[in-house]
């Protein structure tokens, strides 16, 4: 089973061997840009998130690049971008943009508008099972069929109706949060 198939089956846990195997090398290689260990770890985490989402989007082709190469490019891009913003590095404009040559789009920072913030807060107040279902569907891009197998539902109809109830609950929580703040 290749990496993308493993990710579809077991989610981000499929990345654990790559994470543990590659982290020390990455952290060491970023020493050339900054001594700040926390920042280098941050860059590695952001790279792993970006790589995971790249796989979820179905864009990763293991015949073209190794995970190491892509994670290195993504992490380096994040780190250089961050150091440039904090004026801690003088680098050329094109430094850290090698990932563009591979047709990769990176979105490190997601800024939520006020309505999205409300949804996000309501998500945290949902029951664990509902939140997991919503994450699987809307973030990890699982199909209803895949959710059925992953969470051991009886059939697809049960998944669909549970999802509908979870979204309804989410809206109710948003409404009561709104009423509470008025």
């Amino acid at each position: 089973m290749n990496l993308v198939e493993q990710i579809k089956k077991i989610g981000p846990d499929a990345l654990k061997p790559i994470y543990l195997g590659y982290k020390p090398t990455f952290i060491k290689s970023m020493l050339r840009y900054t001594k700040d260990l926390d920042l280098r770890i941050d860059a590695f985490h952001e790279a792993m998130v970006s790589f995971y989402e790249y796989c979820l989007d179905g864009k990763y082709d293991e015949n073209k690049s190794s995970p190491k190469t892509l994670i290195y490019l993504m992490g380096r891009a994040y780190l250089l971008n961050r150091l440039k913003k904090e004026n801690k590095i003088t680098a050329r404009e094109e430094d850290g943009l090698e990932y563009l040559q591979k047709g990769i789009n990176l979105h490190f920072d997601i800024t939520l508008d006020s309505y999205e913030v409300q949804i996000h807060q309501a998500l945290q107040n949902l029951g664990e099972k509902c939140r997991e279902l919503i994450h699987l569907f809307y973030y990890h891009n699982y199909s209803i069929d895949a959710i059925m197998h992953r969470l051991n539902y009886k059939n697809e109809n049960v998944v669909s109706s549970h999802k509908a109830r979870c979204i309804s609950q989410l809206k109710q929580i948003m409404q009561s949060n709104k009423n509470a703040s008025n």
Partner: protein
Amino acid sequence: MPVTEQDLDLIEKHLRDQLQENEKILFREKMQNSAFQEELQFRQKLKKAAMHSGREELHRKFEEWDKVEPTGNQTRFTRSWLNRAAAIILIFATATVIFWVLNLNTPGKLYREFYEPYANLLDPLQKGSSPQSASISQLYEQKRYQAVLERSPQDSLRLFYFGLTKLEVKETTDAIEILEQISKAPENRFSQAASWYLALAYLQDGNKDASKKVLNSICGQPNHSFKDAATELLSKL
């Protein structure tokens, strides 16, 4: 008009870019319905909020992976067990101190700690690419050092990789000569990297003083790419 199950199905397919052609036409018609638009907007924002929340969970998962796994069940301590444990720790600590003293930041040790091959960002290797058409940086990346050395160093790029390869194959005197030449030419795009590898080459050669001199020079340049690494290495020399 309230949204139906079929409407929700259309919306979810749209969000996943999975609409068939006939469904796209139906979707455009449904967009005339304000309740449909509202639900679409809600689900778009839900998707974005779920992405934010999902990423937070991923970060927490990574932090868990970073932690040391707790060991199994605790055993009951007895006095003799403690004595045995203390004896083992003492022997281990003594051995560690002896080992540490013997290996205290020797040039070779520092070289091994700080050296890593130069990352090929110019034209990273693609899987399936032909070995015959490999560039000098790709040959270096593949560790085909003999092939690198067979290419004559006609330009600054080739000369730099020539120098790096000399360092890899431990022809240190040649490596020092080449890297020193490049490091003294600030207009050369590899001069900063060359000065870092020159410092490492001196360590490989056992020459701490010469290495320190180069590292001090690097640290004296505020915008040097290897300033932080040089500072770290200098602190151990």
